[in-house]
């Protein structure tokens, strides 16, 4: 012990500066930097991309009623925002009809938003009653817009996820039997499993 103190003292006495090698710190920093870069690149590939179905170039006044077809069922995202303008444009008697549709859609959206879990876990079975109601509402709104000479037309956009084709076919089969559905324009697109929904953003439209 005394020997080691003597050696240390001798070293300081020689006027040498104590310098610490920075290589361990540097290597840690570089490792952290590398890991962070890797995570960044990885997250940009693997993070689910939130999507919204639109057809904005379709004459500019058509509004999408989005239906996502999943293996477990469907998620329907009705448009609400543009209905207020339509409501202002129609007669008093038709205002009530539109208000009923708005309330019904808002209720459906609230139910969706209150569901726990991610957006992809809230699919409900494609009930015939729901499909009939959706197509009826769209037809009523389109007819009221036409009657009021207001530029507004709703149409159905289907996003088909892998294994979601069966639900889509069920909806289309029901629609072929419905008089209400004949005049409704339809669009469909295959979706990748890592494309998820942004319900809040979609319902704001």
């Amino acid at each position, binding site marked *: 012990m005394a020997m080691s103190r003597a050696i240390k003292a001798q070293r300081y006495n020689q006027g040498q500066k104590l310098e610490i090698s920075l*290589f361990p710190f540097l290597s840690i920093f570089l490792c952290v930097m590398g890991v962070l870069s890797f995570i960044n690149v990885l997250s940009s590939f693997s993070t689910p991309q939130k999507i919204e179905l639109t*057809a*904005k170039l379709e004459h500019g006044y058509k509004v999408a009623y989005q239906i996502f077809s999943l293996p477990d069922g469907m998620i329907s995202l009705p448009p609400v925002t543009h209905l207020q303008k339509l409501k202002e444009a129609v007669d008093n008697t038709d205002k009530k009809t539109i208000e009923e549709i708005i309330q019904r859609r808002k209720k459906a959206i609230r139910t969706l938003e209150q569901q726990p879990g991610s957006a992809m876990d809230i699919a409900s079975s494609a009930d015939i009653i729901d499909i009939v109601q959706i197509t009826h509402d769209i037809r009523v709104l389109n007819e009221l817009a036409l009657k009021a000479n207001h530029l507004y037309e709703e149409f159905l956009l289907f996003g088909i996820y892998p294994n979601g084709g069966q639900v889509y076919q069920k909806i289309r089969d029901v629609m072929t039997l419905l008089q209400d559905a004949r005049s409704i324009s339809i*669009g469909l697109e*295959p979706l990748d499993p890592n494309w998820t929904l942004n319900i809040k953003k979609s319902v704001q439209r």
Partner: protein
Amino acid sequence: MNNLISLDSLTDIVSNSVGILIIFAVINLIHDDSKTYQLEIPIEHATELKPIFFIAKGDRILPINMTKIFESTTVQITQGMSENKRIFPLDYFGLYGQVDSKENSGISFHVHDISQWSKTQALEKNTSALHKSITHIDPKTQFAYFFVYDSDDETASNGFEAFRQARKYLKKYHIKTGWQPVSAENPMIICDEAFNESCTYLPAYLGKDTP
């Protein structure tokens, strides 16, 4: 020890870079969470154009020669092979057919083997059968209609990406496309609209592509 190079500035740069990366990662996460990509969806339109059928499964595409299919089906029906909704071979690239004569529901197709089908890379090859079948489509009188397998099975994955590639390629030739998802449980059916209203095959295109 005196000869050690001062690494202060280098440490400074590296630690700053780490800090910037952390900030960048956080911003990226926040940004990604709120960013929504808008997918513009083609809309189906009524048309006078005649559909030319294709099947997309995995990374492969099969053009359907309806003349050959009808010939094979007629032979099989004549020989009584299609009775009781029995599945019969069509001798056409691993395709099998099924006919329900009572319901007038057309021909259902079942895929058993896709190994002979062209891969999507063949689209770009001028000598490939797939390329030739596509270039034979007259955009003024015809459009391409795809039956796209939507589920993964033991033979192949879904045909979504193959369909997207084919659609993009066909657009170069101003050929319109339409599609519907199919699967083993929900097979593709080709039938006549005059007998069944669900037998409608429509092209879908964007507003800007409207003729």
